[in-house]
């Protein structure tokens, strides 16, 4: 299942072994989709995390997303898990199992819990009546007195009963759950563990009377697996890319990037500074990079808006840096805890003046590491700004995955060497557009970086000749660079192409696979490099395609408009453009494809 290179994935390698390509199994499902819900503090999220960990240890792949309200503590929370025998790229169309520890605030996020007639709902009869929405879904509800059961064990907690029941239902060994619990509780001591194990066992026993949802045996795996969140992967990619300085201001849903990086940077000779605001953060990043240290900041839409002026400065002064925007619902404060792909416009067009820069987007949790690392390398190599558009759905979700592949290796920053000769030209008009950059401390190459237009030496100039030459240079270095295969992920063949980007790639990938399984040839093209646009490459990738389905998560069709502005598309184009916070599901895509048959 492992991918060797980004960009090109052979058909065989991307074929998940979900049973279709394997000898039939006696029992067991290839995938199970479940949600654990409860009031904040009920421990639904914690039970979900343990479950994912256990599934990973048992050899399964998995994905855990979260639906959360705005409350700091005590709001509604849902852990949405999908556990499968093959890599999981997307939430499923509906839930197979919903476990409600209680119904507190259920209505607020009911829309994010799709139930079908085949779904099983486990709820506590002591937590009041089953909500109408559940009854109307046709799902089968079964009562399990989780709270009462937990009460029977001194110190027992409801979420542990639920955990036991779910683990047993899907066939995860109780011993493995206890082992994970023991490891996590560690220092908290034996009494807590005994209470948890006791409650867990009661849940396991209770599951015997419930309809089973057993997973098939996990695949025989070779090679390592990771359990990682998108925000952690972003931090890891940044660190592997050589980032040694981060300045940032906390913002949901980007903060975990910073939380992961702060201690990691300190241990690798770097540092993270909590700035007074995003204006300071981005300018600190510019300063650190000017001083020779690869630097990055992570933020979300409101913070990116504040950073925009300084991004123009970095473009003009050719100071490399990376901004990770973990997107959330916008505009304004919008929906801080939920995902949307609606910062594409500002990332592409937000800078004033003609300011060529890079915009990249990871398209899976593992790819957050790959794309961020690549972004750092590209920013350094091309001495420019790279904006990485992650989002809440990637950043705050966890997945069990094969270790992500390495991004292309690049030369990195072209450094000016010490010289005794006078006349160092920081902005020399080279063929590539990239000119050697002096790092403070280098004798003989002193210069002043400037946001004012300048001549080749960096001296401010308002002359047309200098302006045009420098505009050309800054455009040329991005346009003429060979980005290799990584500019897009391209999978499959056929006259229909799903054209997408970022987190929308997950459901598109699954939809394409299901379509192929059903005998419909479908290509998937997911753009990793958004700016600069690569019209020649996309034209080649679309060769033979008659119909394109554009898939994105924005209300204003931002990606579709971006494509129309930069690319030639076939005559027949349809668009799935849905704003957050509801994810696009594979079935939505397949339904649209069905109208084309």
């Amino acid at each position, binding site marked *: 299942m492992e991918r060797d290179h980004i960009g090109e994935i052979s058909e065989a390698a991307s074929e998940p072994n979900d049973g279709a390509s394997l000898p039939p199994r006696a029992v067991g499902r290839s995938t199970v989709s479940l949600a654990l819900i409860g009031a904040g503090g009920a421990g639904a999220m914690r039970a979900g995390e343990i479950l994912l960990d256990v599934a990973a240890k048992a050899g399964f792949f998995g994905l855990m997303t979260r639906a959360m309200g705005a409350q700091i503590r005590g709001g509604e929370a849902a852990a949405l898990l999908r556990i499968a025998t093959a890599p999981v790229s997307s939430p499923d169309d509906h839930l197979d199992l919903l476990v409600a520890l209680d119904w507190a605030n259920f209505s607020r996020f009911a829309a994010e819990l799709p139930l079908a007639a085949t779904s099983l709902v486990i709820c506590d009869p002591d937590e009041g009546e089953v909500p109408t929405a559940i009854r109307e879904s046709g799902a089968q509800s079964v009562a399990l007195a989780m709270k009462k059961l937990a009460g029977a064990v001194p110190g027992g907690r409801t979420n542990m009963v639920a955990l036991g029941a779910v683990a047993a239902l899907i066939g995860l060994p109780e011993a493995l759950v206890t082992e994970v619990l023991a490891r996590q509780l560690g220092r908290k001591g034996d009494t807590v563990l005994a209470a948890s194990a006791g409650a867990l066992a009661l849940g396991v026993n209770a599951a015997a009377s419930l309809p089973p949802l057993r997973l098939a045996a996990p695949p025989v795996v070779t090679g390592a697996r990771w359990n990682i969140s998108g925000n952690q992967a972003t931090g890891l990619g940044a660190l592997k890319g050589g980032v040694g300085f981060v300045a940032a201001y906390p913002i949901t849903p980007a903060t975990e990037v910073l939380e992961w990086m702060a201690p990691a940077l300190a241990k690798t000779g770097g540092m993270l500074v909590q700035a*007074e605001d995003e204006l300071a953060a981005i300018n600190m990043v510019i300063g650190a990079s000017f001083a020779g240290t690869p630097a990055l900041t992570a933020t979300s839409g409101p913070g990116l808006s504040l950073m925009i002026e300084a991004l123009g400065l970095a473009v003009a002064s050719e100071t490399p840096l990376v901004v990770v925007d973990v997107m959330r619902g916008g505009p304004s404060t919008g929906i801080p805890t939920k995902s949307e792909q609606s910062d594409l416009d500002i990332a592409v067009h937000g800078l004033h003046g003609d300011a060529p820069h890079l915009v990249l987007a990871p398209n899976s949790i593992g790819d957050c590491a790959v794309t961020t690392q690549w972004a750092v390398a590209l920013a350094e190599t091309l001495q420019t700004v790279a904006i990485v558009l992650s989002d809440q759905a990637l950043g705050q979700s966890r997945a069990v995955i094969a270790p992500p592949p390495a991004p292309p290796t690049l030369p990195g920053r072209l450094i000016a060497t010490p010289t005794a000769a006078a006349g160092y030209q920081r902005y020399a008009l080279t063929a590539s557009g990239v000119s050697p950059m002096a790092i403070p401390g280098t004798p003989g190459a002193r210069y*002043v970086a400037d946001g004012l237009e300048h001549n080749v030496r960096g001296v401010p100039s308002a002359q047309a000749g200098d302006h045009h030459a420098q505009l050309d240079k800054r455009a040329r270095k991005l346009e003429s660079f060979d980005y290799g295969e990584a500019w897009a992920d391209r999978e499959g063949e056929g006259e229909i192409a799903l054209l997408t980007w970022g987190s929308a790639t997950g459901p598109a990938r699954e939809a394409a696979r299901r379509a192929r399984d059903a005998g419909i040839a479908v290509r998937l093209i997911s753009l990793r490099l958004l700016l600069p646009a690569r019209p020649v490459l996309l034209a080649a990738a679309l060769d033979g395609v008659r119909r394109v389905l554009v898939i994105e998560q924005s209300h204003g069709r931002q990606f579709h408009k971006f494509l129309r502005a930069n690319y030639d598309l076939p005559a027949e184009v349809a668009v799935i453009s849905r704003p957050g916070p509801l994810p696009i599901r594979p079935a939505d895509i397949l339904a649209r494809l069905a109208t084309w048959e």
Partner: protein
Amino acid sequence: MPDIPVLTAQDFKSDIKPIWCPGCGDYSVLTALAKACAELGRPRESIALISGIGCSSRLPAYTSVYGFHGVHGRALALAAGVKLARPDLTVIAAGGDGDGLSIGGNHFLHACRRNVDMTYILMDNQVYGMTKGQASPTTAPDWCESKLTPAGTGIAPVAPLLLALAAGVNFFARGFAGNPNELARLIAAGITHPGFSVIHVLSPCVTFRAEQRAWKQAVHALDDAPATDRAAAMMRYAGDDGFTTGILYAGSTPPFMPERQHAMAAADFEAGFVVERQAAG
């Protein structure tokens, strides 16, 4: 050991002709800065001069050290990034009263608190020179010469000294562009003092505030040792007329510089994500 050439003040100036009006106080600041650098004897390439936008912020291009002429109001943040990434460099920020106290006021506050070891040359002319004469945060409320505020601002000016002291500044000196020798001494003292140092320079704008030529008569040197206790300094300067020159405050707060270790390599962190799988079977 190679001979380290002795650099003169002139060596710290570039060959670029300033855009400043004849008689602008900023010329003297340039002279004083070059003199201070020469006296400190640090190599030119080991100094980074960071500025924002304004007449005063044009300073870096006219020196021969490394420089960054950034965006309006963010010099202190950019300078902090330089110093934190490269503690070996001598970092100086410079700019005007509008740049540092209006659009960049928040960064001034936090630079004082953060106390990164760098020096800020605040060139105060109580006006926005570059945009042709509007009121700044240090302009008197009854100054009526700007078309934007023909009846004056009506709001009290900020006192950079008191603001800085309240925010936790570790060193504060005030100089006058009309006395570049004293100013050079103050700048050098600020650079050598550990932590964040502010050199507040009364630097007349002869074009939009011609009356500032009279500052020559207004300035008076502090006839006391610098205050070293913050509370005492706030008492001492509560009624300051804004024209007292000299080292007004020299504190002893340790500079901010996060610890860093070279204990791990980036790839080492991958191990933290590896799933330890149950033995097959």
